């Protein structure tokens, strides 16, 4: 059956009379490439499609000449590349390209073997300059902190515009085809830095030449590129003078030598982004520790050529002079340097002493979701098998556990049901409490593209009008903490109006009748009253969902960080079950995982109640399995303290020692004042981090660890995709990879942890964990990835529940009845404002990483967003200084007046220590899994000063004005009277 389907999907095309096998619909260029037939192409890019600007790809068809990039394989397609007119047309095209682009390759930053202009001219054997090159009447745009645009080198291929408009969908770039000298524009103007550009770098990544270059490459790429232009220019002129006589040949020989030398000099290493859960992978180009650029390729399984500002440009922290590079030991009121032996011996001795004096449960471990899977595994193994406690947790407690709980209750696996490709395929995407465009930017791009070009509908529910809300087909702005109510009302409406998929429910889901009864209170009228949404909007949401063939639910911290976050997550999953939206392409539930490896940290066991692969620590069989696997006498039987309850356990005297890895607990845990007080009460505390964090201030021993680029390992992204990261550079100073520190400590505590490489740790996990049975470093080689569960033979699972077998013993999903309760954090006359908080695009969390570099040029300060209504009411304006006080503490901030918030709602980003919002958050937490209810804060606002400078720099993208266009508008170029279709000679080749 499968074979037959494959045969049916083939066709034959003819190229210069030669039959070639092809897949119907396959782009001609890709097909020819597969058959190793070169057809020149410059503007075409597999992820952007045909742009039809470069005119180098002409082929002859039955209807005359056609641009090869526009053709797709189909039975009967016959083209010719060889005829003279096609060849002439291609050469006319490339001659025009080099009339716009000066070939000074040996002094060019892009001569690294992948300059497509250079390579095309070389491969087409262009003998020399036919049309003279002419400079443009524009200066280089060097305004942007991360990239430079050089109009003199721009071939107007339009790739950058297409990437910005339709891949990233930020809609900053356009080309003004009508100008005398067309050029790329930012928000219609000529200054990149003062535009809506979000610095995703995708335009730079896809530019085929040096017209858009990363600033870090400038002057640093090759042996001759460091020369200043006042030397490069005469040299280039001299060479250009010789060139008409010699042709391009000898000059290209020199530049090929130069490029070969650079190839040896610049390392290109595949790694995975250290920031968010999208899991973008890319090559990092380095010379020693110098990071020259981040270059995503079309092979990245989650992102292709996409990135956001953090993944593309957010690496200054790696070489920060604030990096910890020596172990530190507390001595009186200061720290002193120590060597590893002394520090680790001390840690081993003190951990042993605390255990002997107070028992193993007096110790607790916090794993990091920035660390690798292998490191998460070793952390929990250290806690369980070496110390003997289940007091181990990771920061998914702060964010993700309620979402996982919602999925555990209903469908079984605590992970996204499908892949990013499923999100792209959906007809309707329901986004609840997710600021996707800022927190998962690359996934947001996929969704924005599906909406812009494929008719996908977006229903966005959020208390704040962020970018996804602005772009939504339907935007719901409910009162805070009431999502459960309208979700249940929508579900009830769907059932009442015949939109429930009864066949699916009867065959695959338990508990429908009880669930249906639980929905009785949730009429549309009741929901409108509680949520303050209009009845019509609730009905419209339901109708859109009910009528759609494929629906995905996407949610994030706006759902989970509430007292009833697990319940709201469950409500989303219930809704998807009612409408049969699981197991098919383009359907499913997608909690957006925050950190790069927050999924993996839990998957690999750093949770207080589960072993790796989600086996309960309270299950005797699982315990026996792991006891034998680890070769220890016993394992603790009861679930341990979680991140949040650990702090209370310290204050109650139950916890005496903590070992905290890569977690800024002193800032990120709710009620920060209380947390810090309790750190001071510990008998012994170890902090393992790459920076001297606020948490480290309380430590007895501080151990310098290595960031992702200084070690090997694997991460799991939000799609359950396991990807390998390779070591880009050696650890800085005496820092060590976390896995190596933990393994060393394990040995000092008497266990035979002789792991020589993280792959050996992964082999152990695969041997002991059915969920990862077939995972190995060989299967993850290079760009390869595996989405769990992975069977022993290596078969992975891009989409869960495809066979409609849910992850319960009987294979049936479950409805989980719910009731609504309001948040315990009351808005009253004194604390009369609701404070929301979260990340911003430019920074990650508390800014430890992103705050260490040039991203600060775009945004450094934390501010409080105030609605225009409230600003009027309180007499504040952008730049005013205010004090926000909650029932726990207070902070002072500058005001930014914006329509992103409404009424009495405020928003504070997280990215600095000074404006730390966790001085305001409280102890109230999700009732099921104790995730702090960070999003439920009642505050009052006092005005300290009215006038002041705006906290938002002028060059921040939020001040820009996007210019959305559907495509790059090449027809406007063709419509010019001075455009002559090749092979006709051009009259003004230097213009476009």
């Amino acid at each position, binding site marked *: 059956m499968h074979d037959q389907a494959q045969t049916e999907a083939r066709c034959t095309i003819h190229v210069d009379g*030669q039959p070639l096998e092809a897949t119907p619909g396959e782009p001609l260029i890709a097909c020819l490439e597969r058959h190793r037939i*070169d*057809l*020149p192409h410059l503007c075409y890019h597999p992820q952007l499609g045909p742009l039809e600007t470069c005119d180098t790809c002409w082929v002859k068809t039955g209807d005359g000449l056609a641009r090869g990039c526009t053709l797709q394989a189909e039975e009967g397609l016959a083209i010719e*590349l060889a*005829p*003279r007119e096609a*060849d002439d047309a291609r*050469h006319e095209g490339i001659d025009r390209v080099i009339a716009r682009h000066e070939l000074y390759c040996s002094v060019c930053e892009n001569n690294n*073997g*992948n300059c497509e*202009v250079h390579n*095309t*001219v*070389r*491969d*087409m*054997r*262009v*003998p*020399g*300059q036919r049309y003279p090159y002419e400079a443009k009447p524009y200066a280089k745009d060097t305004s942007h902190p991360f990239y430079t645009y050089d109009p003199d080198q721009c071939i107007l291929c339009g790739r950058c515009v297409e990437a910005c408009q339709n891949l990233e969908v930020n809609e900053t770039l356009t080309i003004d085809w009508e100008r005398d000298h067309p050029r790329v524009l930012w928000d219609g103007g000529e200054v990149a830095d003062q535009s809506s550009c979000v610095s995703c770098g995708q335009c730079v990544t896809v530019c*085929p030449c040096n017209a858009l270059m990363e600033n870090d490459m400038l002057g640093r790429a090759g042996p001759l590129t460091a020369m200043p232009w006042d030397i490069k220019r005469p040299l280039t002129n*001299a060479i250009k003078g*010789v060139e*008409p*006589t010699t*042709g391009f*040949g*000898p000059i*290209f*020989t020199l530049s*090929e030598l130069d490029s070969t*030398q650079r190839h040896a000099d610049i*390392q290109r*290493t*595949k790694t995975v982004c250290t920031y968010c859960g999208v899991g973008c992978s890319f090559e990092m180009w380095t010379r*020693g*520790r110098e990071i020259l650029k981040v270059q995503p390729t079309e*092979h990245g399984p989650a992102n292709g050529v996409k990135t956001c500002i953090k993944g593309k440009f957010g690496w200054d922290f790696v070489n*920060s*002079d604030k*990096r910890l*590079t*020596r172990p530190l030991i*507390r001595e009186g*009121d*200061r*720290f*002193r*340097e120590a060597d590893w032996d002394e520090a680790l011996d001390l840690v081993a001795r003190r951990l042993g002493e605390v255990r002997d004096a107070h028992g193993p449960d007096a110790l607790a471990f916090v794993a990091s979701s920035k660390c690798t899977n292998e490191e998460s595994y070793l952390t929990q193994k250290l806690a369980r098998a070496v110390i003997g406690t289940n007091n181990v947790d990771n920061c998914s407690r702060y964010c993700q556990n309620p979402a996982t709980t919602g999925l555990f209750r209903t469908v079984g696996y605590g992970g996204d049901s499908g892949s990013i490709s499923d999100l792209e395929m959906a007809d309707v995407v329901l986004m609840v409490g997710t600021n996707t465009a800022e927190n998962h930017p690359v996934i947001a791009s996929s969704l924005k593209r599906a909406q812009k070009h494929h008719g996908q509908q977006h229903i966005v529910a959020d208390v704040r009008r962020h970018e996804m809300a602005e772009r939504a087909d339907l935007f719901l702005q409910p009162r805070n903490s009431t999502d459960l109510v309208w979700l249940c009302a929508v579900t009830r409406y769907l059932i009442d109006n015949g939109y429930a998929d009864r066949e699916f429910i009867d065959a695959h889901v338990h508990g429908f009748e009880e669930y249906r009864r639980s929905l009785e209170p949730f009429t549309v009228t009741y929901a409108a009253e509680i949520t303050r949404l209009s009845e019509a909007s609730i009905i419209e949401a339901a109708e859109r969902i009910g009528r759609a063939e494929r629906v995905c639910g996407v949610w994030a911290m706006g759902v989970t960080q509430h007292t009833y976050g697990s319940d709201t997550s469950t409500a989303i999953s219930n809704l998807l079950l009612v409408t049969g939206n699981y197991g098919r392409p383009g359907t499913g539930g997608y909690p957006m995982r925050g950190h790069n490896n927050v999924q993996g940290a839990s998957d690999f066991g750093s949770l207080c109640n589960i072993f790796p692969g989600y086996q309960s620590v309270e299950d005797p069989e699982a315990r026996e399995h792991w006891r034998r696997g680890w070769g220890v006498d016993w394992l603790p039987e009861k679930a341990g303290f979680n991140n949040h309850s650990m702090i209370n356990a310290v204050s109650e005297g139950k916890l005496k020692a903590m070992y905290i890895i890569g977690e800024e607990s002193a800032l990120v845990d709710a009620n920060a004042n209380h947390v*810090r007080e309790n750190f*001071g009460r510990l008998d012994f505390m170890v902090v393992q981090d790459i920076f*001297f964090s606020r948490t480290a*201030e*309380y430590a007895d021993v501080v151990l310098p660890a290595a960031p992702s680029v200084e070690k090997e390992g694997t991460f799991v992204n939000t799609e359950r995709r396991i990807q390998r990261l*390779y070591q880009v550079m050696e650890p800085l*100073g005496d820092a060590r990879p976390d896995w190596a520190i933990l393994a060393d400590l394990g040995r000092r505590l008497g266990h035979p942890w002789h792991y020589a490489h993280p792959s050996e740790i992964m082999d152990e996990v695969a041997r002991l964990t059915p969920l990862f049975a077939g995972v190995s470093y060989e299967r993850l*080689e290079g*760009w390869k990835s595996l989405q769990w569960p992975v069977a022993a033979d290596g078969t992975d699972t891009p989409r869960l529940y495809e066979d409609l077998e849910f992850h319960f013993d009987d294979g049936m999903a479950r409805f989980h009845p719910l009731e609504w309760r309001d948040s315990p954090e009351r808005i009253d006359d004194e604390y009369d404002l609701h404070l929301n908080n979260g990340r911003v695009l430019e920074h990650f969390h508390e800014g430890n990483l992103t705050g260490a570099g040039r991203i600060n040029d775009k945004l450094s300060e934390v501010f409080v967003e105030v609605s225009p209504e409230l600003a009027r009411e309180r007499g504040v304006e952008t730049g005013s200084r205010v004090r926000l006080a909650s029932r726990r503490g207070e902070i002072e901030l500058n005001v930014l007046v914006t329509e992103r918030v409404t009424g009495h709602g405020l928003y504070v980003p997280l990215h600095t220590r000074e404006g730390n919002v966790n001085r305001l958050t409280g102890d109230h937490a999700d009732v099921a899994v104790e995730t702090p209810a960070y999003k439920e804060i009642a505050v009052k606002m006092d005005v300290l000063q009215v006038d002041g400078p705006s906290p938002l720099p002028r060059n921040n993208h939020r001040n820009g004005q996007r210019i959305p266009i559907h495509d790059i508008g090449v027809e406007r170029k063709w419509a010019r009277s001075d455009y002559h279709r090749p092979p006709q000679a051009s009259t003004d080749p230097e213009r476009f």
Partner: protein
Amino acid sequence: MAQAIKSDRVPAGALGGKTAPDAHDELARLIDNLHRRQIFRLLNDALESLPETSRLIAGELESEGGVRGGANLFVLLRTLGRVPPEDLQRWLDAAARGISAASREEAREAYPAPGVLGVKDLLHDEALWHSLSPLLEGLKAFTGELQAAADSSPGPAEGSRPDPEEGADLPPRRAGSGRDPQEQEESPHRE
């Protein structure tokens, strides 16, 4: 109760580290390359087996020209150390052809100065240009050889088209995709 210790009480030596190579690192790298590519062994063998020569070489190395020559040699060796042997073979073959072309008497005579195309304007020196012409002829042959050697799979898109007015006499061109062959074939991660 443990008090917080602020970062100003952390010894400076425990923070930051060397993030860029200094001259010593570069020298160490050069020595390492020379060693890994067996260049040192070659030199040592030569020095050991030929005491007479080594005395001569040692004397020469002391001279000013020797020092300069040594520096140049190091640069050359360092570059050669990174060139894959098959490429070197191609270059050497091509260079041999280039040298023979450059030494042909007719190259000296027949090569016209570029005149109208600007080089003359640039150089203002007919004689200098004449002395350069064999080198250019050599470079042309070198390049032609290099491209011929690289051209192992002729694509179907070959065609002919008038050369630009004063273009050089190059092998027939073929359509090219402009892709980086090294990039396509290389594994994406580092070995």
